[in-house]
């Protein structure tokens, strides 16, 4: 075998998982679908002494909780995109899940893995930012909820403390007259990691003005980014193409992407303005068609 050989544990309760993490704070790592962990172990980026596998904890449930929908951290991308409950409430999340790699990865890769890996390009992060989702974090001392927009602290880094586990994501049901859209620019039609991605949501009040706007951007900052300045351009206004272009420009001003092997910083910055404008226009078109 071409990677280090960690011990392996599949705990049957969260308490056992906490215990394992506590007893080996430096060497234990959590594994879920493994689609990212395994290649990184093989490349020697991760060299865990112990793998704690969440697969027996039943954390894959997608549950209607009235005001919220709770998505278990072990739900796979396939679970998400096949869920009618999620499809009815969060179409932009489904669009993002459909865009993650190909079916064999989507059948294994999990929501929790996509978020905890904390890639700035994580496809599920931006729609969850747009829908005001909360990360449900569990630890020995109890549970806490953190807005997804504050969950990421740097590339590969999250707010999770040693011994804590992301167990679910809770998404509020959107208000009436809400539309959202996820859009991604990649180098090929399938299997592409985003050059830039954007998720937008607008909710309208009775006068047809935008009461709430959310814009999340991927691959343009050290973390999936919420751009409040651009949201403020939209809020309180009646939607039109000019306004969308202005919000796109503001979103572009609000980020300073880097140049890497997938694209240049300059190109990304320009594309943010385009993607945000287009996503808003498409979302708006969908709302009018309803």
């Amino acid at each position, binding site marked *: *075998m071409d*990677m*280090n*050989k*960690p*011990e*392996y544990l*599949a705990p049957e309760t969260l308490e056992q998982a906490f215990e394992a993490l506590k007893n080996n704070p430096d060497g234990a790592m959590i*594994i879920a*679908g*493994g*689609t990212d962990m*395994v*290649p990184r*172990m*093989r490349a020697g980026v991760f060299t865990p002494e112990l*793998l704690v*596998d969440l*697969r027996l904890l039943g954390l894959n449930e997608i549950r209607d909780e009235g005001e919220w929908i709770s998505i278990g951290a072990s739900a796979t991308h*396939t679970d998400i995109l096949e869920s009618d409950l999620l499809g009815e409430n969060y179409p932009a999340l489904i669009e993002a899940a459909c865009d993650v*790699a*190909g*079916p*064999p*990865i989507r*059948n*294994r890769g999990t929501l929790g893995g996509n978020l905890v890996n904390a890639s700035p390009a994580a496809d599920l992060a931006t729609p969850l930012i747009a829908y005001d989702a909360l990360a449900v974090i569990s630890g020995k001392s109890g549970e806490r909820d953190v807005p997804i927009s504050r969950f990421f602290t740097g590339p590969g880094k999250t707010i999770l403390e040693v011994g804590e586990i992301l167990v679910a994501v809770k998404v509020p049901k959107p208000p009436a007259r809400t539309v959202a859209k996820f859009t991604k620019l990649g180098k090929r*039609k*399938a*299997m592409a990691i985003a050059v830039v991605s954007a998720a937008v949501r607008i909710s309208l009040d009775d006068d047809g003005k935008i009461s709430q706007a959310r814009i999340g951007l991927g691959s343009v900052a050290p973390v999936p980014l919420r751009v409040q300045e651009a949201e403020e351009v939209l809020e309180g206004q009646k939607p039109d193409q000019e306004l969308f272009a202005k919000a796109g420009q503001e979103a572009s001003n609000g980020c300073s992407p880097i140049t890497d092997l997938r694209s240049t910083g300059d190109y990304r910055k320009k594309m943010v303005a385009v993607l945000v404008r287009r996503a808003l226009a498409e979302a708006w078109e969908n709302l009018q068609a309803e």
Partner: protein
Amino acid sequence: MTEITLNFIVNGAAQEVTTSPATTLLSVLRDDLKLKSPKKACGQGDCGACVVLLDGKAVNSCLVLAAQAEGAEVLTIEGLADDGKLHPLQQNFIDNWAFQCGYCTSGMLMSVYGLLLENPKPTREEIKTAISGNLCRCTGYEEIIEAVEMTADELTKHLSN
């Protein structure tokens, strides 16, 4: 290093394998069980040459740890033929020139077999989506898509007769 004893079902038969838990399912299938159809290629989930069905779903076996397959049912090409008679999907791949070098074929077949299990009459777009995680350097994909369409036609006709 603790070894684990893995019990699972491969192509319909119960198997017991003692291995290190971080060995991949791909290595167990190829090296322990001598099932050579899943291919080792990119090792990152990009190419799809190692795709097998795990509990009915297409997965990259190079990204699944052996320990994670405990209790699961695995299906590889070796389990498709029925008593020496090729599955219609295999026969249609042959008849339709749906492979040339053959390196992608095992994974490609399992991806589309998984599709047909869930969706016996897929559209062209659904077929394309199902193989979006499988790279083929030779065929240009058209013949593969046609072989799947042909199989879906045959199997649904067969069912309705």
